[in-house]
């Protein structure tokens, strides 16, 4: 196991879950991701990532109420677990640390 380390796409999905708050279910996550990144997020890919996040304990899920939409099938809502929050914070920290050590002109010059 890679442990609690986050992959790039995993991080994005987890962040999206957090941003969607109480409305985070697979289709909505896909739509949000598309909005943020501009690239199409395939349901199958997102679904498997959600499953993996839950397996790693980074996200929790519960089934919602049944509605007449979706052929009467319930949605599975996701939220970020405590470990997930820690992992997100840690990832952010790592990045910021690195950013901090980059002299500004160097990077701009390279672009």
């Amino acid at each position, binding site marked *: 196991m890679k442990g609690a380390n986050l992959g790039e796409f995993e991080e994005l999905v987890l962040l999206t879950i957090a941003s969607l708050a109480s409305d985070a279910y697979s*289709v909505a996550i896909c739509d949000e991701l598309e909005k943020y990144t501009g690239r199409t997020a395939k*349901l*199958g890919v997102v679904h498997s990532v959600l*499953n993996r996040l839950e397996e790693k304990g980074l996200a929790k899920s519960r*089934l919602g109420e049944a509605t007449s*939409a979706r*052929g009467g*099938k*319930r949605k*599975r809502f996701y939220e970020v677990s405590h470990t997930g929050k820690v992992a997100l914070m840690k990832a952010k920290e790592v990045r910021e640390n690195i950013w901090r050590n980059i002299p500004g002109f160097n990077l701009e010059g390279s672009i």
Partner: protein
Amino acid sequence: MKQKTEAKPPRWATRFLHWYCRPRLLEDLEGDLNEYFDRNVARKGVKKARLIYVLDVIKFLRPYTIRKIDFFHLFIHWIMIGSYFKTSRRSLVRNKLFSLINIIGLAVSMSVGLLVISIVNDLYSYDDFQEKKDRTYRVNTKTVEKGNSSELKLASTSIQVGEKIKEIIPAIEDVTILRPGFWGDAKVGDAKVGDAKFPMAATWADNSFLKVFSFPLIKGDAATALKEPYSLVLTEKTAEKLFGASDPIGKTVQFDTTSYIVTGVAQDVAKLSHLTFGALISLASLDAGHKNADLHSWANIWQNYVYVTFPEKTDISKHQAVLDRLSKQENKNLTARTVFVSLQPLKDIVLGGPLSNNIGPAFTPAVMWTLCGLAIVIILSACFNYTNLSVARSLRRSREVGIRKIIGAHRSHVLGQFMAESVIIALLALVFSFALFWVLREQFLGLDNHVGDIFSLDISFRNILYFILLAIATGLAAGFMPALFFSKMNALQVMKDVSNLKLFRRVGMRKVLIVIQFTLSLIFIAGTLIGYNQYKGLITFDLGFKTENIINIKLKGNKGAVVAKEIAQIPAVQDFSQSMMITSLGSTHGTNLTYGTDSTLVWMNMVDEYYLPLHQHKLLAGHNFRLKPEKGKESEIIVNQQVLKRFNIAKQNPEKALGEIVSVAGQKMTIVGVLKDFHYGSLENKIEPVMFRYLAEPATYLNVKIASKDLPGTMASIKSAWKTVDKVHELEAKFYDEQIEETYAQFSLIVKIIGFIAFLAICIASLGLFGMVVFTTETKLKEISIRKVLGASETGLIYLLCRGFLVLMVISTFIALPLTYLFFDKVVLTKFPYHQPISLTEMLGGSLLVMLFAFLLIGSQTVKAARNNPAKVLKSE
């Protein structure tokens, strides 16, 4: 918008998703797919949305979504198998009658299945001992005569093809040419055996014969054994016959004036070989004296066989074009016919359907599949019994199932239990059916002279494996419906109140199964009776001449007059005649007859002046042969009415046709007599033009008319008379009537087989019916008793119980009889121009018999039930 509410994703895809997806993920996943589907319907239309849905369902087939195989549940089956055994055994022993019905039915039906399996296995293992079986091919020939539209397919071909094929197709590894048909009296120049002669047949074969085919030599060198002219390779059996125990290698065998040297001894030919021989003669012997050009011509395609081997993994399809080119080129030199050759794999020869001039047995796959179909029908019929009885008696087992379910058995466990039970019963039945198969096998091999030659029906490991597979498949087929029924049972309902169980819910299905069983039985029995009647009609048909008490003796090179003189000593012998061939047995012999400028092939027999009166042929006009000319000086000919009709001689007036001149084989002949039409060929063909010529050359057959009541005794005296004339050859004499029966032996074979199947089908169906009647009367015993107490009469009760079953019988009769009639009238009998009409008695006779039998079965049980003392039955409640 309307479209959106109506559109639904494809159901099968959803079902597929339900099947593979883990239950935990399923609902959410399905919901997501539905949401996307609705979206796509709005954006892209229904069709596209459905397609995307299907693709998505397939895309979601990932390791994490797939349901885990429930090893635990599978494992439980293994743990429980002991328990299944125990409960199966208990239920078998408890219901002895029903177990017996099931086991007998399955055993009887499966024995037929075993027989068919060994037959099919035999057919497929033909020539298996040939090491190059997969890459050996035979050259077959197709020929069309000029002015004749139908093409003739031959297994034989010309020697020339064998000589040229390797040149034009260099990929060929080896070619061998063989030519059966050598006949002669072998004289062994050995002092020990003396001057005795042995009649024997042999096959000419060239030197690569032993290379292409795996017929190992015990003695001699296979590489050179058939190289030199006048070399002879004997099989063990022939060598034993000619030389006894002494070593035959290097010894000479004389046929007439030619001596052959034995160069090898081969193992006896295996039974399952399409090629058989008693001795091989080197093909070079044919050309040894002088080269016979006609033998090597392209059109000489009647008696030679060419086999080739290719290296492994060769695609032979591309070589056909080369052969076609050769055929076209050679056909330019032919005037009378065209000849085309093609390759046939050795492994397809036995199942390749009949070809003219074929060697070895040949079957059309259709015959084989029909046999398989018949076996399957019989086995299914027995399975129906099992299904019917098990479902009907579900009441008895429902508590057991209920308790199992409450303790925690899954549906799949109950399903497994009942499937296992039926498989156990089928395997038990297999033991009995194997014993039955042993009896059947002997009967089958003895059915007909040929059957025993073609099949060995030996038990091999492969066969046993198939037998067990058949039993398992039968068990599964039989147990499927009951198992499904039991597994669907609601445990709570069963435990609370058994009477709640809808016992007669599947009555419809049961009735349908009974009707199917009886319809099949009736079809078979009506088919048997019609077939038997037709067969009887064929062998007693009025052929247009008399065949009673005539013995045909094959002369085998002896002078007819000499044999006749010896036989004439026997008092029972009345009359003799001699002929070239025996008519009405299916074989034909024809030559061209020319009248004016018109010429056509006319069937012919050459006879002496006693033949026509002896067979009581009717002359419409003219007289019998009067001149007794020598060979080449014949001038008289007798024809039948069809000849007059075909050539329109004298406006078909027999009297006026006399004296007309026709030409046969370049000889001018005068019509001296006109015969009433008679059957020259077999009854499968219409009457065709036939001529009789005077027999100026030595006869092939001696026809002896006898007047004895003691037919076997006369035959024995003829045999001893023959011995005084010919010491070398066995007597070959047969009654004409018996020969006619042999001609139609295949039909009697078919009738016997169908009759046997009919017998089995009726037995099995009756067993099942009996079981159902016993069950119904048992369950209705209380009802009957109450009715009786209330004043119902016995006959009324019997009628009440029988009615349901009788209706089923009548329905099957109404389905079966018209079907059979149409099948025979429109399909089978159209092939026989001289068939008997289908009579009502043979249609109804069989059904009445079956109905009577069924009625007895039903009646015996219902009478028993109706006569019960109601007080006794009701008291025990």
